[in-house]
């Protein structure tokens, strides 16, 4: 057990899964790095975010595979290999790049099993760096997991800390259904205690990050930490909250969410994606349909506005939900 960043925790999960199971391999742009380069230092990159570091050296070119910039082919390669019983973990770098490979994710990988009458398995994992916080502007900052949650056949994971990231990644690799794994890139360098040994966190089981009486706060990905901060800052005002981190948006642990709402009667939902047809609406709608009689106040949704992500640091700070906005939402719902 030691302090590890989310980056290192995921890297460790990949190392351990690959050591344990020959059928696991990674594929993507520069996941090894420097292929064909005159320096000959193949493998030193380990992905532009460093998540696949050391895998080439340890497992060689057949299990740590660099590709051209061809995201549809990368996802297709993972999907096809998985149909053949391999357990690929593909990296698509920025979640925004789903734009150039959505068909392979949504219409192929995600639907094989159904369209083939339940007679196939596709144990592929596709990894993405998701969300804002880097002034990376409109095409490199999107969450995208809310969009993918709407497609049946896919499982969607959004860890909020290094511990969960490792356990969820090991579950994702072991899972026999296709899994989309969204890593909030703002959290890559955030560390917490992470066991050295392998462990799995089951899908569809939310984490109760804080426990309280007055409000249920549901938050996703990098919003979980901000929500926790907001809740902690309210301690002296006497407002206490359940903070629920669903960890997987599909499957969703509706039971934990509904039980909490039944107890508190108040709901704040926080996500960094824009407001329409996303996870804040999804959870708010769940409450309106399934916990209506427990609700004592309007549900408050905290999200980005209906705008692309801006570049300028000041604009992005105003765009992504802040601790202050979450505090205000909690106050509003308890007012």
């Amino acid at each position, binding site marked *: 057990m030691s302090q590890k960043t989310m980056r290192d925790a995921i890297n460790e999960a990949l190392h351990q899964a690959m050591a344990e199971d020959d059928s696991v*391999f990674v*594929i993507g742009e520069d996941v090894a790095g420097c292929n064909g380069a005159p320096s000959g230092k193949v493998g030193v990159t380990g992905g532009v975010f460093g998540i696949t570091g050391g895998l080439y050296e340890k497992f060689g070119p*057949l*299990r740590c*595979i660099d*590709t*051209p910039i*061809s995201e*549809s*082919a*990368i*996802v*297709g*390669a*993972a*999907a*096809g*290999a*998985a*149909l*053949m*019983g*391999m357990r*690929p973990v593909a990296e698509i770098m920025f979640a925004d790049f789903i734009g150039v490979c959505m*068909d*392979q994710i949504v*219409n*192929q990988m995600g639907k*094989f*099993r*159904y*369209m*083939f*009458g*339940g*007679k*196939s*398995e596709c144990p592929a994992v596709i990894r993405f760096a998701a969300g804002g916080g880097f002034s990376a502007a409109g095409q490199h900052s999107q969450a995208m997991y809310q969009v993918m949650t709407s497609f*049946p*056949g896919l*499982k969607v994971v959004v860890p909020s800390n290094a511990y969960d990231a490792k356990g969820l990644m090991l*579950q994702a690799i*072991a*899972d*026999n*259904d296709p899994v989309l794994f969204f890593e909030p890139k703002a959290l890559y360098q955030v560390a917490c205690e992470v066991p050295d040994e392998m462990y*799995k966190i*089951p*899908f*569809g*089981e939310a984490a109760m990050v804080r426990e309280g009486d007055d409000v249920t706060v549901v938050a996703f990905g990098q919003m979980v930490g901000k929500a926790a901060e907001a809740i902690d800052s309210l301690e002296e005002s006497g407002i206490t909250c359940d903070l629920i981190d669903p960890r997987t948006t599909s*499957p969703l642990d509706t039971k934990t969410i509904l039980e909490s709402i039944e107890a508190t009667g108040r709901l704040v939902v926080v996500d960094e994606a824009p407001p329409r047809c996303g996870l804040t609406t999804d959870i708010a709608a769940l409450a309106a349909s399934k916990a209506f009689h427990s609700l004592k106040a309007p549900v408050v949704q905290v999200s980005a506005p209906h705008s692309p992500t801006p570049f300028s640091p000041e604009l992005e700070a105003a765009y992504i939900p802040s601790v202050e906005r979450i505090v205000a939402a909690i106050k509003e719902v308890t007012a």
Partner: protein
Amino acid sequence: MGLSRESLLRAYRQMKTIREFEERAHAEIMNGQIAGFTHLYTGQEANAVGVCEHLSGSDTIISTHRGHGHCIARGADVIGMMKELWGSSEGLCKGKGGSMHVADIENGILGANGIVGGGPPISVGAALAQKIRGTTNVAVSFAGDGSVNQGTTFEAMNLAVVLKVPAVFVIENNYYSEHTNISYAVGCDDLKARTEAFGFPVFVADGSNFFDVYEAAGKAIEHCRQGNGPAGIFAETGRFHGHFVGDPQDYRAEGELDDLRENSDCLKIFRTNTADMSEISASDLDAIDAEVMELIDRSVTEAKAAPRPTPDQVTEDVYINYGAA
């Protein structure tokens, strides 16, 4: 060529099976018996069979919207397929896929595919699995002359070369994508050359002649099995029906269809080509014809009688498991 009597008879049987499967499907669609969008392979049978005669074990294929022929050639259960077209819960895909999604993973069929260009990337993945495991198996993707303009197809071809995987790209040029002619949709003059420029050899075949396809496919597949990376097959062929059932086919030249059926019928050509062979006789083929007709009749009879899916089945088979593992 060295094809055994067994191979020759099997090849003929499969082409005939595809032909009659399709002609019967056509009739039943016209009768209103089969729902959805169906694209028939009639006329192109030699392509599928000429390629798949080389495949066995865990060699895979992936197909297109026009997928019945490829699936039959690779060994899909014909009765299960007919039941699938009928939407029965006993269909190969339990009635959930239909014509455009016939699949049979266990028999190396990674599925027909409703997305033009959807198959090649997946096939590269299947080929990659073979390479990682160190087998000599190959992964074949079928594609039409229209699908070669889809970005996913190009990406798959380049990636296959980069990773040097045993991916066989079969391009069936039936001259049309829907109603548009290849002379319009493919900008360059020479599609074979454009494909080869990606860095793998492409073998040309007359797609109405089983022996010709068989030979070209043999070269391509051998190239792959030897570990030389991908290879292609470019076959000129013709479909005898419209793009989909009901297509008025305004794009055809006068007499084009008659000419195709007269001069490019792979069954006729097979009979001509084998007329002088000692291994098989016309009566062998006649016997197969009769057996195939019987099989297709039976498939329709069984499909009509097969159980229908029930509403509770709608939500099955989305995931292996969902929720806590």
